[in-house]
């Protein structure tokens, strides 16, 4: 696993967005800037397609846009904290914490284990709370790197 799941430059702590599409786009641009997504527009279309199947909002103010896409070079996570909240279709209101998961289309199973581990951690309230409490990108990336270990 040469490329880490997340680095501080994939974290945005003060996202302001009108809707989930705009919020997602800001995070996609972070991935594209880091060279993890080769075609921001194409990847965005894949994420939209997934979001259209079933809203990814989770209880507790979490939005979880994600997709497997040919435009992704390495399993990656971008995190956006949205103090004003943005609706991700969760039953209990808007999301203040948005995780964008990007998985390569061709990724073999071992490659994707890291994302499975991430998804499992996301269920834990303590993990989510620690990320909500973190104020700077470096802390967010550090918490995720420490907590998310493939089983």
């Amino acid at each position, binding site marked *: 696993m040469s490329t880490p799941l997340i680095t501080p430059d994939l974290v945005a702590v003060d996202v302001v967005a009108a809707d989930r599409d705009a919020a997602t786009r800001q995070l996609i641009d972070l991935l594209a800037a880091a060279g993890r997504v080769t075609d921001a527009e194409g990847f965005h279309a894949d994420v939209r397609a*997934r979001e259209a*199947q*079933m809203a*990814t909002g*989770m*209880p507790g103010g979490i939005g*979880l846009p*994600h*997709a*497997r896409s*040919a435009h992704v070079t390495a399993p990656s996570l971008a995190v956006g904290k949205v103090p004003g909240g943005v609706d991700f279709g969760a*039953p209990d209101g808007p999301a203040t914490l948005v995780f964008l*998961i990007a*998985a390569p289309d061709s*990724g073999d*199973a*071992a490659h*994707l*284990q890291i*994302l*499975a*581990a*991430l*998804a*499992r*951690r*996301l*269920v*834990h309230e303590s993990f989510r709370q620690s990320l909500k409490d973190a104020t700077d990108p470096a802390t967010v990336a550090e918490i995720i790197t420490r907590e998310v270990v493939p089983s």
Partner: protein
Amino acid sequence: MKLVAVSSCPTGIAHTYMAAEALEQAGKAVGIEVHVETQGAAGSTPLDPQLIADADGVIYAADLEVKDKDRFAGKPFVDVGVKKAVHDAPGVIAAAVAAVEAGVPAPVAGAAPIAAPATKVDRNAGVGTRIRQWLMTGVSYMIPFVAAGGILIALGFMVAQFAGGSDGVIAVTKVPVSHLLNDFSVASGMDWAALLFQTGAVAFGFLVPVLSGFIAYGIADRPGLVPGFVGGAVSVAVGAGFLGGLVTGFMAGFLALWISRWKVAKGVRGIMPVVVIPLLSSFVVGLVMFVVIGQPIASLMDGLSSWLNGLSGSNLILLGALLGAMMGFDLGGPINKVAYTFAVTGLATEGLGTDAVQYRIMAAVMAAGMVAPLAMALASSARKKLFTHAEQENGKAAWLLGLSFISEGAIPFAAADPWRVILSSLVGSSVTGAIVMGVGSAQRAPHGGVWVLPLISNPFGFLMAVAVGMVITAALVVVLKSAKPNPIVQAEQAVDEQQELVAQTV
């Protein structure tokens, strides 16, 4: 209490694993051991069979079709979809516990939105077993059509016999559909009989397409449905019957599977399942059935007809045996149809005496056509252990279908296990045909089975002939099936025994 669960989601990278973790944690919180198989993009490790055997219940938190669902057969389950498991895992655990305590498989509101019809196919099984599983998938979806259509037709005959007298059973088949549309009379028993008969006939029209379609579905999943159904319908149109439907089912399934594996440009990928695969595979199936298979079947039917015409009258007992064998061979397919048409056209000859050869031929054909479904009903109730649950259920309906001369009642059995069932049916029906000729029963109704007994001369001889053929066929099929037990049946019985053990220990 112990539970097992399967989770999956469309993308296979997020919800699959969140659901798994959420269920495990929610279970832990209330002291329930939950083991989850994540059928996601990172590959899935099948649950240890021992864990499944030990589990009290199953949770399906799956938005995709659960792989190898057979493993969990017979256990109480809840089917909730992946999202509910992520959002409200404790609620799902509680529902599963309730299902286990209720002791019966119970559905839960808000079930998976992308629920797909179940198949009985285990992808890891050997070729022979998989062929049988594909057949069983088709057969299990066909059985309700056989039961509904067959019983409606039989009821139509029954009502016609009471409402229309001894000729009512003949008259009911001749009431045109336009009469039902324009002049249906609530007070007329014959109209009700015709309504039952026509509705049943329409339901019967689906037998071969459904069989073919769901064999293809078993092989290729959803892409197989369209070419399978189309192929089955073409098989009916060209008169190839259920054997033709078996051919189209397999052809359509593998064709669709093959096409769905093509590497295509990204722009085309989106329209593959909705346009390209159904279009191409249906066309090829149609081409093969109409152009390649249709003509030989037509020639076969013509050849058989003229051969029979040459034979008639020469040696009646031999003719009876031959017609009987043809009736029992493909249960509504081309060979059966030739024998039946041969008999029915004989009825149209004018100025016949009451015991004319034509009427005796009709009696032989009708008796022989009753043998296969009755024999399957007998065999499946006398030797339950040789038949699947679905077949046992179908066997109950087959009694009525057989008595009403609806040979199609045996198709589910023949489609699932063609060689043994057809061979047995061939022998028994042939004996029946010969006996009817021997005892000289004569019949002037073209259809109806026991409901037209009043029209049959020497009805006792007729019934005796049917009974002899039925016993021979049933005995043969039992012997043949005992020689090589069906692995699906064995698997079902293993599950039954487990359930009985559970029931005893609880």
